[in-house]
């Protein structure tokens, strides 16, 4: 589809206010997601990927706030919309599923009711109709015997089942964008694969775009067409997901790809150590000058320590923020 992208983030800055001073927890965040596209945001804990998602959905709370930049949903700026208009978008046009399916469901309410509530809330259905739709929604996420399961309480369901219910709730109103924040981290690997497959298929059927947030580069590359890698509050590289494995251009991405264990490799067979990225992630209050990756980067030179690199467009498509990119 042409025209305005579904969601467009431009130079977003998220401030952390600890009472005495403001620091940018994330800055210069720019990306766009088209209708029906799958986009991944990868990075280690604390790199700012989750707060970016919260900013999109208008849920940053003190001490975090949007410090600058623009978020457009279908060409319309949404960060200054009234609370009521934002609420109208949430759940209806933009939905989100969380890392912890254990806690994201209300323990005292049957799951069917929690799904049905979405239809009542956003689609103005009666409870009768909504309950019927809830059964269908539960069936669509491949829960067996949905007409019986709707009466179950969350604690009666397994982790995988709960995440299916969460997906049913999130997709109930046919949103245009689904934000999935580490949707499978708390699940077994086999269940993880099923859930990802389910999420991808349902979204593809309905033309729902996915913004997937994870620390698992392999998982994201598997699901998403394009991937952005974040480090210390900045997007360092944005590429097609196939390219990012084949020819990572930022040293950080390079490091990430190299540190993935591969079947049959020497490291996996126990004959050599798995590669790692030396050093630690800098504290949010103490980001280094210049390129934030420079203290851990083998290729760092003087310019890296003083000047923050800008986003360069790569010939093969994609963006990278590095003075020495390949």
């Amino acid at each position, binding site marked *: 589809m042409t025209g305005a992208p579904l969601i467009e983030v431009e130079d977003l800055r998220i401030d952390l206010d600890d009472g005495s001073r403001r620091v940018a927890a994330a800055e210069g965040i720019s990306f766009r997601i088209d209708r029906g596209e799958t986009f991944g945001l990868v990075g280690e804990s604390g790199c700012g990927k989750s707060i970016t998602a919260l900013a999109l*959905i208008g849920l940053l709370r003190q001490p975090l706030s949007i410090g600058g930049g623009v978020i457009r949903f279908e060409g319309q700026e949404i960060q200054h919309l009234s609370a009521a208009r934002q609420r109208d978008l949430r759940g209806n046009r933009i939905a989100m599923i969380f890392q912890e399916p254990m806690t994201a469901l209300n323990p005292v309410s049957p799951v069917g009711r929690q799904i049905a509530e979405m239809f009542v809330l956003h689609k103005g259905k009666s409870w009768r109709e909504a309950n019927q739709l809830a059964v269908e929604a539960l069936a669509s996420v491949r829960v067996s015997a949905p007409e019986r399961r709707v009466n179950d*309480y969350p*604690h*009666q369901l397994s982790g995988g089942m709960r995440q299916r219910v969460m997906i049913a709730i999130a997709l109930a109103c046919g949103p245009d964008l689904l934000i999935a924040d580490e949707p499978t981290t708390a699940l077994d690997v086999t269940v993880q694969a099923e859930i990802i497959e389910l999420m991808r298929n349902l979204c593809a059927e309905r033309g729902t775009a996915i913004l997937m947030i994870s620390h698992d580069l392999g998982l994201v590359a598997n699901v998403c067409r394009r991937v952005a890698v974040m480090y210390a509050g900045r997007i360092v590289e944005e590429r097609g997901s196939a390219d990012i494995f084949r020819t990572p251009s930022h040293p950080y991405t390079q490091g990430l790809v190299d540190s993935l264990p591969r079947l049959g490799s020497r490291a996996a067979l126990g004959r050599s150590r798995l590669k790692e990225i030396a050093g630690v992630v800098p504290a949010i209050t103490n980001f280094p000058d210049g390129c934030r990756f420079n203290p851990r980067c083998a290729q760092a030179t003087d310019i890296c320590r003083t000047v923050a690199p800008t986003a360069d467009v790569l010939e093969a498509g994609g963006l990278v923020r590095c003075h020495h990119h390949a």
Partner: protein
Amino acid sequence: MKLRANLVIGGALFALAILVGVLAPWLAHTDPVLDANLLNAEEPPSWTWWFGTDDQGRDIYSRVVYGARVSLTVGIVSQLINSVIGVALGLSAGYWGGWWDDVVNALTNVMLAIPSLIFALAIMAVLGPGLTSLLIALGLTNWSFTCRIARASALSLRSQGYVQAATVLGYGDLRIMITQLLPNMLGPIVVIGTLGMGSAVLSEAALSFLGLGVRPPFPSWGSMLSDARDQITTAPWLSVFPGLAIFLTVLGLNLLGDGLRDILDPQSRSRRT
């Protein structure tokens, strides 16, 4: 399936008390007010006078039966008012926080600092004696504990995943409070509520004793107990039976609260089925 003894016994006691109050005209032997006869004064319990008679020859059994009406009305209605005020203030304060939380906290502290009976007395003094003013006075003075509990629950529930999820899914504040927070804090609120009903029954007794509650000669358990104070050594049945009525009702309410808390917890609910 394990039978919930506390729920059954508590419910039965409370239901019995309500039944007695409702059916008072049929259960009572005599009119509790008019049938005074000094010839029968201070009769001990017997086949004729089940619970004995008082110094004016009125049948204690009939008075206890009728007294259930006043005591239960006061207990239930005033505690309902308390619960509604307490939950509304506490829940909203805990969820919204900020200046509203400060206001509610200050108000709660003031309420806790003033002995509630004294405060109720002051309200009664303004409104004048009678059942309605009794309900209002007791209903406005005992919400601070409910408020504290509701606020504390709201504070801890607010950060639960499902409350945040509800926000993300586009729930409004009011809907979150009613569908997400309230059901999850109902257990302690109900328990506090049933305890509060018990203490409201006792407060009614105190206020009636001071002449601010139900006007004599109409009976309430509290006022009967107070009237019987002087004769506790010579005619103990005067205080034993209304006291027993209060005791059993409050006991029933507490057991009921306990049992309700168990079934309001969905985890224990499914364990039973």
